[in-house]
């Protein structure tokens, strides 16, 4: 996606409303789409409660009302014949950068005050492409340029909604991005000649920031208790970090090497932080027992299925990472990170059957209930259970088969992808800046993509620093 300034985004919204042909637009917006359904005769992969053959799912008002066999459709409820097909919980992508117009506030080693929730772009067709791969929710993250980046946003893929706020899962716990290793040391140390330029520096930047936040909170508390005349000067940055210390905001930490995982766990322990999810965590397998032992419930790990060797800190990787972590009782999920890669997460999950012989259920958990738990939304989504949101993905064959194809994707009971009603051009607007629909050249690599470090290049250039090929170090 081309980066849009707020002003330009507003202009786009305005233009879209002027240009949209009502008939077509209405359909794609799914404004009046029903959210009462009876899905019939499917193989239902509940993930948390086994498999139901010839199963029915009754959806009422966007929630899963009943799961069973031979259910009947109450009046006004539409039916979908899913015989021969497989229904699984909507896939949850624990790490993505789609649906936002900016990724990195790469101007300072600590930028906890910013949040990608402020730059959501509901028009990003990547959201639709996620739906076309059975994805219903995603953790849209700040980039990895800074040891402490900005806040992330947990969204549902309600593609068709034009209000950015409509994507947000309001009840989801807030999270903030941290980043260790090569990305922050390259951006700040190498690129700007300031700390951190080493993994030692990364630790101290984080310790400094958390210490400041603790003092800030202590000053606020002292003011409230009457021990201080004035409150400390308001700092949004320190408010967010104080939220980390209180456990209200969960750190999601871009990390690769085993030593830096140990470092961060030690830091968090010193500050009394119990919950953390490590992202990418390619060397998580080396310290799996330590991850499982962390805090009250263990540290979470959200990993790639098989990416490695794109930079040095992922050279000593193994595609068996997810299996080793799972076998060592670490709460583990898979993620796709890069817009464009969100379409085939079911295949990525299937690879864990080759790399470590995980069971079907274990493999499916990596893209459903496990990321839901890591994101604190497991009470609403991530499995097929009565009372949960009707976030469902229907496949032609078992979703772990390479030959399967997504048929329908429901978000809150609304069909937002249907392979039988899937025109070529699913854009909701045409970017006035991109009037010529130029093709991306097909020399496709992850290096082209709008991922963790995207934006660092431009930001750093504006501050007078050149970071050549910043796109190259992307995760």
């Amino acid at each position, binding site marked *: 996606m081309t980066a849009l300034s707020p002003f330009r985004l507003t202009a786009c919204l305005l233009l879209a409303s002027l240009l949209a042909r009502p008939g077509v637009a209405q359909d794609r917006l799914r404004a009046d789409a029903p959210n009462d359904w009876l899905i019939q005769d499917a193989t239902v992969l509940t993930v948390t409660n086994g498999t139901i053959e010839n199963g029915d799912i009754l959806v009422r008002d966007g929630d899963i009302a009943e799961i069973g066999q031979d259910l009947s459709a109450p009046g006004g409820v539409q039916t979908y014949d899913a015989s021969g097909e497989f229904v699984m919980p909507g896939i949850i992508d624990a790490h993505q950068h789609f649906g936002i117009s900016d990724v990195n506030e790469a101007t300072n080693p600590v930028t906890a005050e910013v949040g990608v929730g402020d730059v959501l772009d509901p028009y990003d067709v990547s959201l639709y492409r996620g739906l076309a791969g059975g994805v219903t929710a995603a953790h849209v993250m700040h980039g990895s340029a800074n040891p402490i980046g900005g806040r992330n946003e947990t969204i549902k893929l309600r593609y068709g909604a034009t209000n950015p706020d409509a994507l947000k899962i309001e009840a989801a716990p807030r999270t903030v991005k941290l980043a260790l290793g090569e990305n922050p040391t390259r951006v700040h140390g190498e690129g700007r000649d300031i700390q951190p330029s080493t993994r030692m520096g990364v630790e101290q930047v984080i310790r400094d920031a958390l210490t400041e936040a603790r003092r800030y909170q202590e000053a606020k508390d002292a003011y409230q208790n009457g021990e201080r005349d004035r409150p400390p000067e308001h700092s949004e940055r320190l408010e967010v970090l104080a939220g980390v210390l209180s456990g209200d905001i969960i750190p999601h930490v871009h990390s690769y090497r085993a030593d830096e995982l140990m470092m961060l766990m030690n830091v968090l322990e010193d500050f009394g932080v119990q919950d953390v999810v490590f992202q990418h965590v390619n060397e998580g397998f080396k310290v799996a027992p330590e991850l499982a032992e962390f805090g009250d419930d263990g540290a979470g790990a959200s990993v790639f299925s098989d990416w490695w060797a794109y930079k040095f800190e992922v050279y000593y990787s193994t595609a*068996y990472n997810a299996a080793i972590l799972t076998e060592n009782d670490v709460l583990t999920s898979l993620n796709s990170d890069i817009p464009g890669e969100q379409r085939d997460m079911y295949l990525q999950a299937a690879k864990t059957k080759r790399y470590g012989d995980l069971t079907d259920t274990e493999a499916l958990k990596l893209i459903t209930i496990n990321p839901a738990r890591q994101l604190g939304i497991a009470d609403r989504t991530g499995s097929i259970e009565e009372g949960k949101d009707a976030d469902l993905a229907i496949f032609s064959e078992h979703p772990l088969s390479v030959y399967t194809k997504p048929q329908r994707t429901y978000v809150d009971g609304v069909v937002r992808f249907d392979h039988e009603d899937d025109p070529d051009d699913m854009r909701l607007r045409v970017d006035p800046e991109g009037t010529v629909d*130029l093709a991306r050249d097909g020399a496709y690599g992850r290096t082209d993509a709008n991922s963790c470090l995207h934006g660092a290049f431009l930001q750093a250039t504006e501050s007078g620093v050149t970071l050549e090929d910043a796109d190259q170090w992307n995760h």
Partner: protein
Amino acid sequence: MLSFFFDRRSIRPLGLFAVLLATGLVLAPSSAEAQKQPGVQGPFALTNAQIIQTPTDTIDTGTIVIRDETIAAVGPNVTPPDDARVLDADGRTVYPGLIDSGTQLGLQEVGSLSETIDHNEIGDLTSNMEALTAVNPNSVSIPVTRVHGITTVLTEPTEGLLPGVAALVSLHGYTPQQMHEGGVELTKLDYPSTGRYGPSDDRSPQAIEKETKKALDKLNEVWDKAERYAQIDSAVAAEPEDRRRPKYLPSMQALIPVVRGERPLLIEANTASDISSALDWAEERGVIDQVILSGALEGWRIADEIAAADVPVLVGPIMQPPSRDSDRYDKAYRNPALLHEAGVTVALRTNNVENVRNLPFHAGFAASHGLGKTEALRAVTTTPAEIFGVSDRIGTIEEGKRANLFVTDGDAFQPATDVEHLFIDGYKVPLESRHSKLFEEFLNRTPGLEK
């Protein structure tokens, strides 16, 4: 030597034990110093196997005899020779080794470290660069790739107008020359592109047009020069006494075989208009019969035109988003099928390095998106062998062919399938890689939490 015959540190100890019992072999002490376990030669006999000889020709139960580097015999009624080591493949399927028609495997170790990258020489005109020279036989990515049954890859130079010469390599051997398959070399042309490099490419359409035109002018200038250089070379060769040799221009010298029609020209083009322009260019230059098209992400838009030009296409990667926001999400997956339906000869490529291993899954996606399993298998076996002119050597399981094959417990394109044995050039290659070794070391780490 017998000890190397099996994958001693197989992640399936029970299965290994059963095989060892069956063949009366014992484990030898491990040699931890070895960088990788070497392969061993036979003769071998794979018995009771389902044998996919070609994509359309399967033996339900048969035997394959491997002697030296070749398949000595294959058929339903072949008797294992007395000196062969017998592997019972009952309930297993044997596939011909898979071929990836476009990678940079062996030419890059770590993506962000230029010291470890050898496929991108400086300059627009580096047609004399030979990929084979820089193939590192000990690249960590090679074992990682071949354990999925991939035995052969085209490995290519990148960047610049004429980046150099690509080579077909076999994924077993200790020198680039040992790995060179059938002596196959292709000169690569990165056709001037009107597409965008990626999301960060914000050039205006006018700027792109201008740059493309400049690059195309440059290409024509280079080709004029190459044709003249070849003419002079011929003239000198005809009358060496009477003519003065021209100044030696390595990049021109390297283009002589292409200009003379003796070597294929691998043209990478992806945007529809670029493919179209490339075909016109090749026609005008009289090299169209040598052209192999690579990439072709938007090939489906002009499939009839490509079919009419009668050039084969190395399509991929398959698992990528479409080239335009306005295209359906699955256009890249359907591209091989749409080209095939139009009558184009299609092989598949990953255009990758460390994850060339995903070739079977790219093929599976192509299969489910219209190509079908048989054609998808062709596109990673017989078709590339034909395109590269080595169908007398590789691509099928037939007597006299090189013994490039692998044994699975199921469909080779399915992620859940395990590869159980692998042979390359007649060598039984251990199924281990950095990834499997780390798994073995760390699944149950010792010491665990307490030292």
